[in-house]
């Protein structure tokens, strides 16, 4: 269970992320029309990852080969790839909302796995479930600390986010597939 959620699923997402970085410029540009500040992509990645975090699907992907195949195809394409296409486009607020929700999810799931006296997956043992719970809570805490440190002491290139506050419409003169300004 720990291996599936914390090794396999993230590696599949990373594979998709790399795929997303390697997307042809023309494809990326046409996707960008539908992905203002990366919102669509982050919504898609959140929904797809929520789906594959259901205990029932963790179970099914162990016992049913077709569910496993669906997982191997969809986690890279619907989680990793949209993240790669969206994260560089999203600004301070969108990233903040996404990260906050990610931290909350890590804590929620971690707590559930830690305190549940029942096995939530029939294919995994209870000690595996509890270990996963501990690691999820630790991961949530570390992510939170990292963001807190960054907010307190980090350096922000505010010019990069300036457009978010001043310009409701994204500037059409700036092709969306180039790196945002300020990223060197």
């Amino acid at each position, binding site marked *: 269970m720990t291996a599936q959620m914390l090794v396999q699923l993230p590696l599949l997402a990373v594979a998709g992320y790399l795929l997303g970085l390697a997307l042809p410029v023309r494809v990326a540009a046409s996707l960008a029309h539908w992905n203002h500040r990366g919102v669509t992509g982050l919504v898609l990645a959140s929904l797809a990852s929520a789906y594959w975090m259901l205990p*029932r699907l963790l179970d099914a992907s162990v016992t049913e080969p077709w569910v496993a195949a669906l997982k191997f195809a969809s986690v890279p394409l619907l989680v990793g790839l949209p993240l790669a296409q969206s994260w560089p486009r999203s600004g301070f607020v969108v990233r903040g909302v996404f990260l906050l929700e990610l931290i909350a999810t890590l804590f929620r799931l971690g707590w559930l796995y830690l305190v549940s006296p029942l096995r939530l*997956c029939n294919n995994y043992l209870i000690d595996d479930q509890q270990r996963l719970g501990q690691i999820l809570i630790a991961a949530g805490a570390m992510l939170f600390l990292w963001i807190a440190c960054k907010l307190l002491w980090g350096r922000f290139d505010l010019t990069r986010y300036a457009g978010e506050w001043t310009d409701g419409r994204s500037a059409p003169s700036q092709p969306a597939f180039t790196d945002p300004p300020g990223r060197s």
Partner: protein
Amino acid sequence: MSALRTSSASVALVLAGGALLAGATDGFQAFTSEAARRVAVHERMVMAPPVALETEAGDRINLAELRGKWLLVDFVYTRCQTLCLALGSDFARLEDDLAGPIASGRVRLLSVSFDPSNDSPRELAAYLERFHRRGPGWLAARPTNAAGLIELKRRFGVTVVPDGFGGYIHNAGIHLVDPQGRIVEILDFGAPDAIVQSLRGFGVA
């Protein structure tokens, strides 16, 4: 305009994602596979498979031959020190509570071993002995071939994983099979009254 396109695409995604999620959880009822198998027997017709079994008396029977009676089925292995003890004492209780319908041949209790290599008829008989079985209304049996075991586990939704200490961890429930061989309900162990109640609901007991 990309903001408008983005919001409509996001709303469409949320709706589609919600529908998918509802589909994957039987309408937000079953988030775990244990809940799912209980919902499944209500919503679909799940038949108990015709699998060859060997009973604690050494008799070779087929699960299909037990049709015509209501069956309460549980899955155990005789070395089990945890869930199967709870299941066993439930069956011992049910043997008393359902003494009437069992005596009239309307109800049978069946404990199926998912560890057939270890659970010979002798072991199965000892298992029943441990729970002071009253009479032939409670059978213990093991599947006689590997394919039968796989089919049983698949149809009943039983998942067995090695616990790392030579034993097994498995999901436990009491499966109610009607006289036509359909699995009609999966109930929790530890609540024999609820099982009697449920049988009553079907007009038995």
